[in-house]
């Protein structure tokens, strides 16, 4: 912790603050590692359960799931645009794209719930077939992680509203959750692409 003079805000030096940010990103990275292992285990269970039994029956899935997929991919791109704009101190642009991200994120979550309803309407529930069980559980667990991501992004969004260009502290307060949230969100978007491929092409 050398650099103690420049950029004093939030009661800590710039070096301390960067160190802190690095730690938080490290923590997020580890968390994503555990989520990877979680879904890795679900995937191997999916393969084993499908291969070892006669009762596996693929259930139909609504085609609008692909629109959901598009929504989360675009939300991820929008978030990246917002994050980069924030990195260049362009807070208006960041705020706009963050708004787009949040809207698309909600669309995705709503779309996932609509998929559940579509299945329920077709008389398909969790126990109907192993494929259905996996669909509900995987989307559910993925959805819970998304809700956590949404909380982080909403915090970022709220803080973006009150960024004061002359106050580096307010900018940093907004950028940090945006950057952490981006790690999480990009990961979850990629995870969803993987999941939908597994659930449809390998049904």
């Amino acid at each position, binding site marked *: 912790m050398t650099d103690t003079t420049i950029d004093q805000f939030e009661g800590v030096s710039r070096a301390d603050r960067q160190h802190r940010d690095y*730690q938080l990103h*490290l923590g997020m990275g580890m968390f994503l*590692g*555990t989520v990877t*292992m979680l879904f890795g*285990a679900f995937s191997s269970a999916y393969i084993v*359960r499908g291969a070892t*039994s006669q*009762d596996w029956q693929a259930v139909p899935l609504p085609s609008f799931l692909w629109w959901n997929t598009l929504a989360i991919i675009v939300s991820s791109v929008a978030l990246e645009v917002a994050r980069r704009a924030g990195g260049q101190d362009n807070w208006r642009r960041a705020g706009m794209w963050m708004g787009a991200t949040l809207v698309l994120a909600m669309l995705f979550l709503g779309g996932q719930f609509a998929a559940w309803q579509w299945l329920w309407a077709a008389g398909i529930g969790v126990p109907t077939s192993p494929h259905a069980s996996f669909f509900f559980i995987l989307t559910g*667990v993925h959805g819970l992680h998304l809700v956590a991501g949404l909380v982080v992004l909403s915090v970022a969004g709220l803080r973006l509203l009150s960024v004061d260009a002359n106050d580096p502290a307010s900018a940093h307060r907004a950028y940090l959750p945006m950057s952490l949230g981006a790690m999480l969100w990009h990961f979850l978007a990629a995870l969803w692409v993987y999941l939908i491929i597994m659930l449809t092409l390998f049904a």
Partner: protein
Amino acid sequence: MSEPQSFIRKCVFSLDHKVIGIQYIVTGFVMAIVGGLLSLLIRLQLGWPTTLWPILETLMPNAYQSGVMSPEFYLAAVTMHGTIMAFFFVSYVLVSGFGNYLVPLQVGAKDMAFPLLNMLSYWIGLLSAIVMILAFFVEGGAAAAGWTAYPPLSAIATAVPGSGLGQTVWLLSMALFIVSFTMTGMNVVATVFSMRAKGMSMMRMPLTVWSYFISAVMGLLAFPPLTAAAIMLLFDRHGGTAFFLPAGLSVGGQLIDVGGGSPLLWQHLFWFLGHPEVYVLILPALGITFDILPAFTRKPIFGYRISVWSLIIAGFLGLIVWGHHMFVSGMSPFTGEYFSLATLLITIPMAIVGVCMLGSLWGAQLKMATPGLFILGLISLFGTGGFGGLFLGNATADIQLHDTYFVVGHFHLMIGGVTVFGLFAAVYFWFPKMFGRMMNEPLGRVHFWASTIGYYLVFLTQHFVGLRGAPRRYYSFASYEYLEGIATSNMFISTVAFILGAAQLLFLFNFAWSAFKGKRAEANPWRATTLEWTVPSPPPHGNFAEEPVVHRWPYEYSPDGADEDFAGQEVDGSTVPVTA
């Protein structure tokens, strides 16, 4: 960092890693008392299966109807004993407890990387322990499907009484445990990566820190799959799914038609955690050995680098050998051969670690005190238990030995011996740092000898009972003609087990008494080299008054040109030459 003043913030909802560490240690020992009492009930039953116990009937009317233990309670007792000892005793005291206490101090940090997460981890951990204990009091009693929770026993609520609410509570408690343990693991990894003092390169870290680091990484990788399995099991129990329930299953003569799941799938997912978990527990004990030993041999340890690499390799291999718990599950012989081979491969790094321990002892003039004695006991148990592992790791031999008392003997020497001796050594060694007082030495020695002799008598004998074919998890052997011969052995084991249990009271007394009345300790009573000994006992909030600077490796004992026979990691090269 400013120090909190109120009692609540200082001792209850504390963010200080040392307080949290001690909280974990105390919680773990309380759980050990519960787990230990259960084991005595188990031994009472196995040693004297036909005797009546009216006192126990008064105490536990449901479990001891008309004075004899019910078979259902026996299963619940075995399940809860295993669960509590592995997850709530050793994990809490050795891994979360000492991990919290030692890692920041030994890397020269003022605290863990995420203090708030750390506090949360403890309180969730405490909650999970409480929930686990509550399982005894729910309808049907505690879970009874073994610490491995194999379905269908764990999946069908009507299978045995403990398969009902007790099993659900077990799963919930484990879920909380995993959350708490993951938080601690993330903290350890982040602390090692980002909080090391200046000069503390990875290759200057004490092996204690290395072992906690590797153990934490393994835990982070291995626990999530158990979470996935637990979620699926909960759905099998309450959501009508059939992940683990096979077709054509019948319980109590009644066909349960839920469909073609695979109980083997659970076994794979469980052991993918279960095997790494035993390494998560034993690695810290091995690492601690290398740091306590030189304080009593007064010479550098043998093979620091090769031990680091061996622990890393053992940790990695530990993630891919889980199938050796399933040799008799009907897996293809080729798969079995692979798991045999991988398991026997692990014995190489493990043996190297053992050789390095012996090499560290070579030619030393031992000046022993209790911590050192427990370390010697640990090394001996590590050898004996590992020797039994060799038999089990061989699929051909394991087909005979699986699910016998040979396995019970093996893992008690390892998980119950090595890790518990490591944890005792750690308590005796770091107690002066934690409380500023020494533990009583004569009491410690009696505790050591009683424990060592007791462990060997109990668990070595179990190996032989197993070789005679006595299966584990049986409530009574009285009705099997071929096992009549083991009745005396069982009585002998149970008798020793009670003495062994009584000897642990010495330890608990010593701990409680010394915390208040023990002899005052200096800052560095063992004349050891790692950073925690450079600060007062107990260390102040924030640990180091000034950020420490590290100049050397942690094993500079009997160096040339020093006034004393050791040089701490903070001593610079101008007084004592730096060797590593």
